């Protein structure tokens, strides 16, 4: 799995490419924590190229959400792929993490 981030006008976009699973989940946590520590507390995780997510991956996303909130910001997700969407629905996490169509839209209303 590959991570990258880009600081935009009102948020930082984190891209997670590959499979978000038991092995890569801790790395996502670490990566996002670093981005927050770098001064961005409004994070969009772009899941456009995340084909798969397991329970660890989901746990990492929620962990990152918590970190963003603790820093006084928020974490949102965008461009969710079918399997990830199924996992979110199945676990009711879609009620916690709203999936936006694109990264630009995620913070467009506030």
């Amino acid at each position: 799995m590959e991570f990258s981030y880009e600081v935009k006008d009102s948020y930082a976009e984190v891209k997670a490419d590959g499979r978000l699973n038991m092995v890569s989940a801790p790395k996502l946590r670490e990566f996002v924590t670093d981005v927050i520590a770098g001064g961005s507390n409004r994070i969009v995780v772009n899941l456009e190229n995340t084909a798969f997510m397991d329970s660890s991956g989901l746990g990492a996303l929620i962990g990152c959400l918590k970190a963003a909130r603790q820093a006084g910001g928020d974490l949102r997700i965008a461009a969710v792929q079918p399997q990830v969407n199924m996992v979110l629905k199945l676990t009711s996490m879609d009620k916690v993490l709203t999936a936006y169509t694109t990264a630009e839209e995620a913070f467009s209303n506030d």
Partner: protein
Amino acid sequence: MTRFWTRLVVVLTVLTGLNYIAWRWMSSLNWDAWWIALPLVAAETYSLIDVMLFGMTVWNLKIRKGAPQPPHDATVDVFITTYNEDLDMVLTTALAAQRIRHPHSTWILDDGARPELKALCEQHGLGYVTRSGEWTKDLPRHAKAGNLNNALMVTHGEFLLILDADQIPEPDILEKTLGYFNNRRVALVQTPQYFSNVPASDPLGSQAPLFYGPIQQGKDGWNAAFFCGSNAILRREALMQLGLVGYVKETEKSIRRALAASRAAIRQARKSADVESPLVAGVLDEVEAATREAQQEVDAGQPLGEVTYRVRRRVDAAVQTLVQADVAALQADLEEIAAMELAHVGESGVPVVADDAVQRMSARDWSPLGALESVQAVLDALTVERSNEAQPVMPLATISVTEDMATAMRMHAMGWESVYHHEILAYGLAPEDIATMLTQRLRWAQGTIQVLLRENPLVQKGLKIGQRLMYFATMWTYLSGFAAVIYFAAPIIYLLLGILPVSSLSWDFFIRFIPFMVVNQLLFAVAGRGIPTWRGQQYSLALFPTWIKACTTAARNVWFGRPLGFAVTPKARQSGGPSWSLIRPQIVVSILLALAAVVGIVRLATGLAEPLGTLVNVVWVVFDLVVMSILVRAVLYKGYEPAAEPANREES
């Protein structure tokens, strides 16, 4: 009485042959030209072994007097296998099969899944079978063996008559053969394959009177007559036993392989820096403990199904613990978030991940263990479902494109008996052009070599020594291509360069060689009892490029997993003009032989060569050219014209 004479000639052949070859090895080699002397003596030794195996075959020639009365209640399925053959032809065969007198069900096994054929079957009240849904695209189809294995799962007859799409059976084919199965050990009755579209001159060498005659009768005498894919009746029980034994063997092999691989996979997973969480380490510990225990259970001979089920259960439980831990951590995070700012979490409070969601997240395809790919792969292989095959039980052997021979050999190894019934009870169609004929011969040779390399009969447990040698004899004949090249090269080398592989062409040579050659030909005459064998002899030499290609492609396939380049033999004539390019190597060799003869005669005239050597080698060249001449007729052959024949069976 015939048996006495046959055996006498066999003994004489072996004695004169050994006498000649021993002398060749010990006192005739021209060491100055070892590079041709050694190959030639090796080729001659090959041929002697070939003849000795033939002698052994006809030694026990079994002439059967017909089968006893069959039991009237024997149930039979007649299978007609097809892939892309002409529908009229398939239907003609099927309707003839329907008219077989003994009660039976007729099935068309359509590997082409053609709706038109299905409609024809419905119209004529024929059974119609295509591959079941299990044969998905990613699984091996195993050609005809797969087609038959698929049909075995949806039919019930005690006996199976297998017919190729072109083999029109006689109505009494079952009455004449089923009685052999009164012997409970008999698993197979093979009848000849005979072709109705072949002129008396048989330019493509289609009829195999020596094989469907003395050779199969001889093998029968050793209880080694084998299945040739069509015109044969098989006992379902024997096939199913073969399939089950094969299934158990394959399953145990793959489980042992998976257990052995699991240790390395777990060790590697532990070492990888990716896995730091103590929870994951815990799962790995659990997987390791489960596989270790499974290993002990397999060694103790416990049922594989239960062993693998227990591993699966333990691993599933461990994975579920892992998912639950993930979910619990997630839930705790959510509580913390909620404590910070309730509104953002939603009106109804913190969502709770339901138990069935945990279950789903633990299933194989979404399991966190999937991240450790090598561990997951090992666990996937720990099943008794044989998930790399469309059906777990494969009665017909799938190790070769000639599944028939491989299957028969496995039956014999399990103690079953076979019968060769020497009476034409079905009439088929032979290829009518050289291209199709070459494809067919290549396929047979490739399949035979595959069996030799995968399940060498000489070392198969359960086979008697006679059976081992009988199977080996057939395989040995397919190595003739290499010997042929040497037989062509030797006279060319002498006539062009004057190099003789033999130290001298003296009295010593002729007194040993000529008796052997004479007795050898006599053996074929006596054993063949007047059947034409010349066409077969011609083709066994003339098709040397095909035999060599078969050996090399089969070896590459078996040892390196390369494809065979296998094609289904087309039953219809290929169109187009004469295809000389198909026999290019033979044309080149023939031209070289003719040139060599001319050069040799010139050398003789100019005093550069000696008369006796030149004479022997020119005669040898002439023999080779006469052998090869059949290919000219084969290329020019325009297909069968039945007009000359008073009655045509095909239309009857």
